[in-house]
């Protein structure tokens, strides 16, 4: 599991998963089948009893597919594009050109690392301003050459550091929100793991917004919320419940369009299957959006986001 501790509620599942692959490796088919049954039962149990906080832990699982896994699994002719043309290249966001079902697309997405070195290199998927500015630059490229944008969202949040503040983290996020709203090309967003507040939304304004079954999307992390409102880190689970951050909650609030089912027990249990599910959803969405004139997209996008939020009026 490359450096990250297995959450205790997933321990049995992880152990069974290893036993199954061990039995398969030894060619003991009967034993593998027996263990596989146990594994499925445990995965069903985990899924049936999963709490909002446990979903956060699944969403952060180190073997969950990341942006580049979706690119590798679904696309060909990938050309990664680097840099914001102003300051630097931010490895916490990847951008590039690719072919999806034979059509060229632009991909932007947060990128986390899997081993310790890679995690540090990717800054744990927390972008700096140049990451958001790179994403905007490449989305503008998409508009210019009439390519749809596919955005993969998976970040704990925008990086809260001195250098990020100096270079205008807030401005970079704000500008993306405004420019994405007006972009005259289709934008499809998939929240694949952690939707960490403004750092997630900064590449999350789209014509279709999908969310994986165990992904979470929130205004603040449960840890941050517990620290501020309860002044107590041990209230994290309660905060996770109070924030209503699961895919089901967001669908109910009208913030996302569709929940994409994950393999039993979570996307990390069968990454290729999770990637294929996302591929199917992207295919349908892009086909629908291609039928709309690009110049009409901002108006529809405005109507979509204009409705969000509940308030009283007398």
């Amino acid at each position: 599991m490359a450096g990250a501790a297995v959450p205790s509620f997933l321990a049995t599942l992880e152990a069974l998963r290893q036993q199954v692959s061990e039995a398969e490796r030894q060619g003991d088919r009967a034993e593998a089948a027996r263990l596989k049954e146990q594994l499925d039962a445990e995965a069903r149990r985990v899924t049936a009893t999963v709490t909002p906080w446990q979903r956060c832990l699944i969403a952060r699982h180190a073997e969950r597919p990341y942006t580049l896994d979706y690119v590798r699994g679904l696309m060909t002719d990938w050309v990664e594009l680097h840099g914001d043309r102003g300051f630097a290249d931010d490895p916490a966001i990847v951008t590039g050109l690719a072919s999806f079902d034979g059509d060229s697309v632009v991909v932007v997405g947060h990128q986390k690392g899997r081993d310790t070195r890679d995690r540090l290199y990717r800054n744990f998927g927390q972008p700096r301003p140049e990451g958001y500015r790179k994403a905007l630059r490449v989305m503008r490229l998409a508009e210019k050459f009439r390519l749809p944008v596919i955005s993969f969202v998976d970040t704990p949040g925008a990086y809260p550091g001195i250098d990020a503040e100096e270079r205008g983290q807030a401005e970079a996020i704000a500008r993306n929100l405004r420019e994405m709203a007006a972009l005259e090309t289709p934008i499809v967003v998939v929240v694949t793991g952690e939707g960490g507040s403004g750092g997630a939304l900064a590449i999350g304004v789209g014509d279709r917004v999908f969310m994986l079954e165990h992904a979470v999307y929130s205004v603040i992390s449960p840890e941050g919320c517990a620290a501020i409102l309860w002044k107590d880190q041990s209230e994290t689970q309660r905060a996770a419940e109070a924030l209503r951050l699961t895919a089901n909650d967001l669908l109910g609030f009208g913030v996302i369009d569709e929940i994409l089912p994950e393999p039993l027990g979570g996307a990390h249990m069968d990454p290729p299957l999770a990637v294929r599910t996302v591929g199917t959803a992207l295919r349908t969405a892009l086909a629908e959006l291609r039928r709309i004139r690009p110049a009409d997209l901002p108006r529809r996008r405005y109507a979509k986001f204009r409705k969000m939020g509940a308030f009283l009026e007398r």
Partner: protein
Amino acid sequence: MVWFRRAGRESRVPEGLWVKCEGCREILYRKELEASLYVCPKCGHHHRVSARVRLSQLLDGGNWKELFAGVSSADPLGFVDSKPYAERVKALRERGARHDAVLVAQGKLDGIRLIVAAMEYSFMGGSMGAAVGEKITRAIERCLKSSYPLVIVSCSGGARMQEGILSLMQMAKISAALARLHQAKIPYISVLTDPTTGGVTASYAMLGDLNIAEPGALVGFAGPRVIEQTIRQKLPEGFQRAEFLLEHGMVDLVVPRQELKETIARCLNHLT
């Protein structure tokens, strides 16, 4: 009769005859502080002011019409921390803050017809929930319809946690409306006051055609405590203050409150 109050808690400033400056700790005569627009005559510290005081400082003759007054916060999450969110909002409204965390008004600034939205820090830290998001979006839409310029005076800790993801989405909603204002070439001046952080900075507060900050105002994305915890070291003096933002190219101007109205008027006259 209250004889002595700390300034800065805006709603309480008018109650006492004497107040203590939050900047230099000098004891100030309230009338004098009020006459200097709540800027300390001794040290220049800019005290926080209520949305009403702000509007009366900016709009001609203190004459303005409140807009969208009927919009108030709901409790879509059924959020409860130490106290239910719905009760929190009710208590604040009963204490007189009927406009939630933003007061939107139409009026004239040096004769220029415009719409001003002033945020109310005393209402849950000026936090942005769906009521704030709706009122600001409607203010932008009103500007689009009437071609009036827009001024937003920000003073906010950011998105309102108690409304969860729906408060985050206000950032997208307001920014999308600002995209339309931008395309319509209607001027929008963002005034950043102490403090402006989080989701408010990361949406409309940084999207002004002109961004103007008050001296000493704390303006940033992440709050200083969060940054200190992340990097595990003390932050440098003046970090995230208005002058720091000016130095790093994030604001056009740092303008003392006494010159704010005149500066906005001069800029709008150039742009309209």
